[in-house]
């Protein structure tokens, strides 16, 4: 079922990671993406993987949910790693026609897989431990300088937070529409890929119609609750940096340093 997608969900809690400043978490996540693509040998890859594992453990969220979050992307991971496997250069270990597997290809496949998996785990860690409101609040604060060039910072943040809020609702609705169309004889599972994509049209059309209707309702509800844009709004949960955040940043810097040192000392594998 579409509904048990764990990706992008938030699990309320009080762990160390939960209590980090959301702005810090976003900045760290961006830095993390850069670092993970700067890993060129197994030692540095290991450091990043260890760093990721540490955060996952500290978040105190059952690994079950992390695994679940990967389910969706599993296909992409497999696809890219298999593709990379055959794209290596050098002497083939195994060859069949034009398809060949080389050590270089295996290395590439491993790197791509580990990088993507770490990336998904880290982004899950971010969304699992940060409420959508906190996340968008942080984005709004981080983008504040853009206000100078008349970028609608508050509006973008509000839209993002509403979009995140309605992900589960719309997924639930997709399930219902699919069931309704199946009950009327629509075939969702069978056929070749093109037929399957076509079978989605009768699901997407009602979904869009209802999403627009919802949007109208939400706008009304927001106006009823005195929403009139970002000016003069306050927040219940004010966010501020603390020692915890500094410690997290230091940890990230150490990881970066470790990766750089390994890259210098050990020849790169890819």
């Amino acid at each position, binding site marked *: 079922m579409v509904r048990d997608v764990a990706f992008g969900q938030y699990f309320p809690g009080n762990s160390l990671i939960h209590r980090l400043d959301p702005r810090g978490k976003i900045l760290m996540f961006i830095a993390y993406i850069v670092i993970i693509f700067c890993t060129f040998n197994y030692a540095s890859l290991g450091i990043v993987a260890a760093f990721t594992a540490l955060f996952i453990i500290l978040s105190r969220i059952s690994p079950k949910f992390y695994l679940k979050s990967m389910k969706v992307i599993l296909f992409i991971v497999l696809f890219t790693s298999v593709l990379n496997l055959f794209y290596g250069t050098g002497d083939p270990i195994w060859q069949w026609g034009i398809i060949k597997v080389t050590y270089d290809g295996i290395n590439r496949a491993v790197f791509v897989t580990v990088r993507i998996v770490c990336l998904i785990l880290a982004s899950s860690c971010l969304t699992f431990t940060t409420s*959508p409101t906190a996340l968008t609040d942080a984005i709004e604060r981080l983008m504040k300088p853009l206000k100078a060039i008349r970028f609608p910072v508050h509006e973008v943040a509000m839209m993002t*937070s509403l979009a995140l809020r309605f992900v589960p609702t719309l997924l639930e609705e997709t399930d219902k529409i699919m069931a309704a169309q199946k009950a009327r004889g629509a075939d969702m599972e069978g056929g070749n890929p093109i037929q399957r994509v076509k079978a989605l049209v009768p699901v997407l059309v009602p979904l869009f119609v209802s999403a627009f209707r919802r949007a109208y309702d939400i706008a009304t*509800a927001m106006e009823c609750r*005195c929403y009139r844009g970002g000016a003069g709004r*306050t927040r219940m949960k004010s966010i501020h940096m603390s020692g915890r955040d500094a410690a997290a940043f230091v940890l990230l810097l150490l990881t970066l340093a470790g990766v750089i040192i390994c890259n210098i000392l050990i020849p790169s594998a890819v």
Partner: protein
Amino acid sequence: MNFISIQDLYFSYADETDPQPHVNAVDGVSLTIDKGEFVAVIGHNGCGKSTLAKHLNAMLLPDSGKVIVDGDDTSDETKTWDIRERVGLVLQNPDNQLVAGIVEEDVAFGPENLGVEPGEIRRRVDEALKAVDMYEYREHAPHKLSGGQKQRVAIAGVLAIQPQCIVLDEPTAMLDPNGRDEVMNTLLKLNRERGITVVLITHYMDEAVKADRVVVMDSGRILTHGTPEEVFSQVELLKKHRLDVPQAAELAYRLRGCGVKLDKIPLEADECIKMLGEAMK
């Protein structure tokens, strides 16, 4: 004391420049609602009751006539937000009024919009959630709650703005019987214990019976209004307009038709049983 006063209200959704004849959604309604009252508005779909509800907090403005809320005219644009602070509106679909991914953050949305300072917001949110018995769920995601719970969170969201009056537009229409009871009991409690004025738009007669006053609408007009006893004893009138009466009243009405002597029309089951017992002696 008059809290809301509706004077000769007309409203139509049609474009005014459209030469074709159009039907008024609200067609000459005058009504006053007192502070602390519990008023139920009943009627068919399309009778104008939802349109009326949206006039009470300036979501819609009259084509002609006036709506005065606590001394302020809703057409006065400088007062719009003051009025919405005093009159909260809860809509039918609970899913579409919760704007945040966490219950307490959703309840905080209203006071945040008003620029209330953080400590005070926290206090209001906790209080509002306790008032609707949803405090234990403050960290849950709204989509994991039942319909009745979601609707109670929506009510808390309005309560946190600290309005004097709550208008609810068919809040129980999408709920199961359990959810309906939860919402109804919450409303009665808020009305009795906190003196909040409640205007409940509904098409469930069993809910209307619990109000202080019932207003029956049909084709944009007020058909009749009065205490539940007064309204539901006019069984013929309601039947003529294809409106239901509470089951107990219906039974008593039919028994009367068969010659059973009942001096008044009962509204709730217990009352009905007692009266029938007496009649049988």
